């Protein structure tokens, strides 16, 4: 959506720069203003591609055993070495990216959906309902996670889907308060009162006024939660509760064969950790950049005008936040 260039009609006036759609604008601002965020975005992209193209990139299938080459050191044949069952570590790390992506995207999506549904209703309705629900959420938050996890896993079995569901719902509970406070903040606006005055039904209110305005928060939750979920899965694997073998999970590779053979085959302990750290780091950086760019409270005249407005506002605020 571009604003028409009308200023050239007036001689001597500066040219109105082109304004882009919100989507393109986001990426322009990302690259221009947030170098760390861009690095993060590149890492995330690489991660996604590795996960999607795992079959193409990986030299061996992840479960292919070569017992003769047990614990082989890194070589031309096994670029990162082989594990205790002779499986190529590089391939397992590559497939691990796919698993981490599943978990990251899946669990975060459930986080957002779950937190938004409950937070939205609780925040919008307010009053006694809100009070009861919030105390309930408080109680759930003080529940020991391990017990719930073990019980749930025992009931529904272990597997990647179960882990995603468990992480999704458990993490979502934590985000309910965030969504709720955003909804309460939006409710305080005048246009909500105006909409009520002209007789907007609850459904319309939610659909047309609340939901679009909490969209940035939802995106922020998604990107911030992604890093946490991947780490959480790694921790679960460390405790033995994660995704069962032979599916390659970086967390399990680290805490299982990595720890056991850390003196004889140190590469088993190094590379999954490097992959995990890089992935979580990249996602976190990117999540931070997304939050910087999309947080409605940070807009206040600075972000709301896109990359063009940002440049102007940046010049102004730079004077405020620097020593004069």
């Amino acid at each position: 959506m571009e604003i028409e260039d009308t200023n050239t009609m007036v001689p001597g006036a500066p040219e109105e720069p082109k304004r882009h759609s919100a989507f393109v604008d986001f990426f322009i601002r990302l690259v221009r203003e947030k170098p760390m965020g861009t690095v993060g975005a590149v890492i995330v992209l690489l991660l996604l591609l590795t996960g999607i193209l795992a079959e193409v990139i990986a030299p061996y299938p992840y479960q292919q055993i070569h017992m003769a080459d047990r614990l082989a050191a890194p070589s031309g044949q096994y670029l990162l070495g082989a594990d205790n069952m002779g499986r190529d570590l590089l391939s397992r790390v590559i497939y691990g990216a796919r698993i981490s992506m599943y978990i990251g995207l899946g669990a975060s999506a459930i986080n957002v959906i779950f937190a938004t549904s409950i937070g939205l209703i609780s925040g919008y309705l307010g009053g006694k309902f809100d009070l009861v629900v919030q105390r309930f959420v408080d109680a759930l938050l003080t529940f020991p996670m391990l017990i719930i996890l073990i019980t749930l896993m025992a009931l529904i079995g272990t597997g990647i889907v179960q882990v995603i569901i468990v992480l999704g719902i458990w993490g979502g509970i934590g985000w309910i308060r965030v969504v709720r406070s955003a909804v309460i903040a939006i409710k305080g606006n005048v246009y909500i009162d105006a909409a009520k005055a002209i007789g907007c039904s609850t459904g319309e209110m939610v659909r047309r006024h609340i939901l679009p305005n909490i969209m940035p928060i939802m995106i922020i939750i998604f990107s911030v939660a992604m890093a946490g979920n991947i780490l959480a899965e790694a921790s679960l694997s460390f405790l033995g509760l994660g995704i069962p073998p032979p599916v390659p999970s970086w967390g399990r590779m680290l805490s299982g064969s990595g720890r056991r053979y850390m003196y004889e085959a140190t590469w088993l302990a190094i590379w999954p950790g490097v992959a995990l750290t890089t992935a979580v780091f990249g996602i976190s950086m990117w999540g931070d950049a997304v939050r910087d760019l999309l947080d409605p409270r940070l807009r206040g005249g600075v972000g709301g005008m896109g990359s063009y407005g940002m440049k102007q506002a940046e010049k102004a605020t730079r004077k405020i936040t620097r020593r004069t």
Partner: protein
Amino acid sequence: MRNYVIRRLILMIPTLFVVTVVVFLLIRMMPGNVIELMVMEHSQEQAGEVNLDIAAVEAMLGLDKPWYVQYREWIGNLLQGDLGLSLWTERSVNEDIAARLPITFELGFLSFLIAQLVAFPIGIYSAIRQETLGDYLGRAFAILSLATPAFWLATMLMVFPSIWWGWSPAAVYIPLVENPGGNLIQFTIPAILLGTAMSATTMRMLRTTMLEVLRQDYVRTAWSKGLKERIVIIRHGLRNAMIPVITIISGQIPIMIGGTVIIEQIFALPGMGRLFLEAIVTRDYPYISALNLILAVVGLLLILLCDLSYAWLDPRVRYK
């Protein structure tokens, strides 16, 4: 305000009741009968048949009664200050917790301190000097410490120093009273690991809220009045930015009581986190109920304190 606090405290009791009952039930519903687990462990040590009267053992441990009777007994004991006896070792739960709690508290407290000492300077600096090299370095450091899985870093710390310098972390816990120096050295690495990881969350939230607050009109007024940078940032900026940060910080305090399983496991510290995990794995019901109760009480109190602090920090927040 006082009525609000009283109301919240009273509301805590049914919440605690619900939480303890649900956990009570859940752990008894978990697959894996305690007696069977004990028999399996016992028969692994002594090869040969084990002729055990399961019913008798159950009666001895008090597990044959229906769950609500067990619960009533537990509450009765609780009100007398007795948390029960372990099903496996028959040691008093009170004793074990009293032994482990100081360790967890020391680790948690040190980590908490380190976390705030790291988070606040970096968070504030990142907000006032946004998009500068210092901002990037600080944030990269904090996020790196969060992204690096503790168990991986610990493994690296165990392997490489032993290869390069022949040093490895102490394998047995050194009590503070016996050897203060050794104890602190032993706690340094885990506290730094845990502290820096905890600091990342606080730092990011602080940075976000500070960025938002510094754009406000009252900050601009303070600048134009010619106030010193330090006053503007701390008195006007930080104080208003603290509310969500307090939420995050108070969420980290339970670590001082509940411990972290992973760090304790790796660094061989007998703390509450490991106790909890072992209790769950061995289905040691008295431990689980006791620990759960302690954590729940602490957690709910913290949430209440947190909400109260909002009223203290932000005069617009009023509780009826």
